[in-house]
């Protein structure tokens, strides 16, 4: 029997996934190509008694998320590249205060005002913290609308589990394309109370939410706490998808929409006998190093991105000179096509 599916865009699937995960606070600002997300939240949050605010700016929105999170709510904001740049200060504060939060970036062409076409040029910004200080976000990169829905729910769980901001990194194609997905039939997740949250110090010592540690040694202690979390996350939460890694002579490394395009390429080349495989990181931070364990196999990597080589650097770091790595990328709204990828593989 065909399970009931609905046709929905990536942007809306993320919004619906958030509501399903018990997100009860959303603040955002319009920016293409994620406007469908904010419109969906405006329409549906009130139905679950959640709070929806169209903030005066992305800057205000991230501080609103900080506040809602400090109050113990599952909270989310979304934007696209220029707006995410605006949020960096707020994200650093969220990380420093060890607050959970979900931030959605539907990437577009840059730098500057750029254009409204898709891109993957914010990888550095997402995986290197993005704002000031030694911190990390967990970064999830869905590769389909179904995965966008599913991973959004995962992101809230991870954020709460580790008290860390989580970024969902999509792009204008994933955000605006529509495809059929299955919705969860489970009830909306009930959110457990957080002992550290601000809700009035009824019969308990006051809770303080802060990232400021002036006493000598205190900030270093706070940073070591963060680093300990990051070590645990690196051990336990890295995710990737691998295809045909047993016999692949050339392995494409791609994430998000680029991985979809790569899969088409792989299907075509495999049907004519070429030994091509795929590594699709799903967590970009922590970067799935385990995917690159290859034993004695001789293989070459082709990293394909809608950028001029950002994830490429992480692949280089992990492979550490033991295999050859090549790169194919376009940016500013340009999308490497199946033909371009196939031509490049032929040359390898």
């Amino acid at each position, binding site marked *: 029997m065909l399970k009931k599916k609905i*046709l929905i865009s990536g942007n809306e699937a993320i919004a619906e996934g958030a509501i399903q995960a018990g997100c009860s606070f959303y603040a955002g600002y319009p920016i293409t190509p994620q406007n469908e997300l904010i419109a969906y939240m405006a329409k549906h949050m009130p139905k679950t008694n959640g709070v929806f605010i169209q903030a005066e700016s992305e800057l205000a929105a991230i501080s609103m998320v900080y506040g809602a999170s400090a109050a113990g709510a599952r909270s989310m904001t979304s934007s696209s590249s220029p707006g995410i740049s605006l949020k960096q200060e707020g994200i650093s504060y969220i990380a420093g205060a060890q607050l959970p939060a979900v931030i959605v970036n539907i990437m577009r062409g840059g730098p500057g005002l750029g254009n409204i076409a898709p891109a993957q040029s914010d990888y550095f910004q997402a995986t290197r913290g993005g704002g000031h200080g030694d911190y990390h976000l967990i970064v999830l990169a869905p590769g389909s609308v179904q995965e966008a829905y599913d991973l959004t729910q995962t992101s809230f769980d991870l954020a709460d589990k580790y008290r860390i901001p989580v970024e969902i990194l999509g792009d204008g194609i994933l955000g605006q394309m*529509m*495809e059929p997905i299955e919705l969860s039939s489970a009830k909306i997740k009930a959110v457990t109370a957080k002992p550290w949250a601000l809700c009035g110090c009824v019969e308990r010592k006051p809770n303080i939410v802060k990232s400021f540690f002036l006493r000598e040694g205190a900030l270093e202690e706070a940073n070591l706490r963060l680093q300990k979390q990051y070590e645990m996350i690196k051990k336990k939460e890295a995710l990737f998808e691998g295809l045909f890694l047993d016999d692949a002579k050339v392995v494409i490394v791609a994430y998000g929409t680029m991985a*979809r395009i*790569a899969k*088409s390429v792989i299907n075509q080349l495999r049907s004519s006998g070429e030994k091509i495989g795929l590594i699709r990181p799903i967590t970009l931070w922590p970067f799935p190093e385990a995917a690159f364990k290859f034993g004695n196999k001789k293989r070459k990597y082709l990293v394909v991105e809608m950028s001029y080589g950002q994830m490429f650097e992480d692949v280089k770091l992990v492979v550490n000179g033991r295999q050859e790595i090549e790169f194919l990328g376009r940016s500013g709204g340009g999308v490497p*096509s*199946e*033909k371009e990828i196939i031509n490049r593989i032929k040359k390898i």
Partner: protein
Amino acid sequence: MIERIIIAGSGGQGVMLLGKVLAEAAMRLGKFVTWFPAYGPEVRGGTSHCMVTISDSEIGSPYIDKADTVIILNNPSFERFGGRVKDRGLLILNSSLAKAGINKRVDILQFPFSDIAIKLGNIKVANMVALGCYLFKKKAIKINLMLEVFKFMAPAGKTNILEINEKALRSGEKLANG
């Protein structure tokens, strides 16, 4: 099977909706389907288009380079997308706004969709007249399924528009039937 469709017209001609109803219908037939929009800076006028891919297997990129079918509703879109039909593909053209010459490379169906829509009572249903032609020509999606999709997608409280959209669909079907 795989069917790649590009639909293009000016902002306001219902290009996106046309793609969405096709995608919804294909989904109900159990197909893999993707719908992907592309906008110019103009909210009205100019050219906007969407790409619909219908397939029996997983779809990679939602981008379409050469399409099996191109449905064009205005002239700037004809200039931009007229050449995107692959050999022996189908071009459905709104001759109220754009005219194609004789072309041996592709199969052309051109009818005055806008004029027909005006006669039916609302120029905005020109897109559904074109859809009627497409459904008749390709046969994969039955009109009754499409009418169910219309009912499902009509905005709440606006079911009065279903009648004119059905008329538009059926008149397109008649046109293609010759």
